[in-house]
């Protein structure tokens, strides 16, 4: 089985391979009160999830213990804050880029190696990819490997289901 030695190498391979969309049969979809996620590719300890986020939503500071991750911008209006820093102002980049896409399409946002972070989504909603390497567990979703205040009833239910299975 091909493996990678770090999450960035996995991200580079996945993009160079043409962004293959092959969701796994097992645990492909996770839902919270803020976002819906699809694992678009999973191999060994690595996976990439695609998140679609509702407008005008925000997480509190949280962490995903044991998971190295790297986010890549797709579209919409969102930003990550890490290690207690304020949300960065990305308003200057809220404009159209090549071929009618978002100017930030494909840009790496944050490398989050189990450290505390938060996500804010503005009125356009938003979408990003999250490349992950799970150190000790079989990959499932960062939505259920969540250390922090959850996002509501749907999120609680999702975590409960994952813990039972």
């Amino acid at each position, binding site marked *: 089985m091909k493996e990678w030695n770090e999450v960035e190498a996995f991200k580079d391979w996945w993009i160079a391979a043409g962004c293959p*969309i*092959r969701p796994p*049969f097992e645990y492909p979809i996770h839902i919270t009160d803020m976002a*819906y996620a699809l694992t678009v590719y999973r191999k060994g300890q690595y996976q990439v999830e695609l998140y*679609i986020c509702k407008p005008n939503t925000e997480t509190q500071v949280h962490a995903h213990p044991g998971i190295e991750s790297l986010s890549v911008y*797709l579209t919409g209006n969102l930003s990550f804050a890490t290690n207690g820093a304020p949300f960065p102002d990305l308003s200057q980049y809220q404009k*159209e880029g090549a071929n009618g896409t978002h*100017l930030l399409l494909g840009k790496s946002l944050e490398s989050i190696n189990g450290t505390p972070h938060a996500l804010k989504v503005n009125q356009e909603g938003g*979408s990003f990819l999250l490349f992950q390497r799970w150190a000790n567990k079989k990959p499932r979703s960062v939505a259920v490997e969540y250390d922090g205040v959850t996002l509501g009833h*749907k999120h609680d239910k999702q975590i409960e289901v994952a813990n039972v299975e």
Partner: protein
Amino acid sequence: MWNNVQEFRDWYMSSGMPLRPPFKNPVFHTDNAMSLCMFREGRFQVELYLTEPYSTTPPHTHPGVESAFVYLAGNIQFYLEGRDNPDVQQWQKSNENGNHFLLGTTVDSPDMTPHWLNIGPEGGAFLSFEYWKNEDPVSVTVNWQGQTVGTEHDKTIESVKHE
């Protein structure tokens, strides 16, 4: 460019499914689903739909839009009025690569043919390929004729009217 939604679907699937969401109107939500436009060119687009476990949509149409659905993951029972709608539970299993047995399976949904969904405990993920015959594409979430999914869906439709 493509002559119909089937040509567009076949081109997209054979081109490695390019991930190129638009800047304008990329994300929509209802009470039990969210969508991301993955690719848009002229009057053609493909939207990724993610649906909640145990959710349903009432019968509806998308006037002026020719559609084709492609199965990705989860547990999705599509119904098309006037068609044979086999029970998908018989295919609720993994293929040899660890993907869903139905990954890549497609169903055409001609303009004005009522269709609806029942989603199982796993939730659902599918692609909606669309050819908008009379206007620039937005989302079939807001081009909706029939009973809506609920109040969130109503608000999303209303918000687009005011843009």
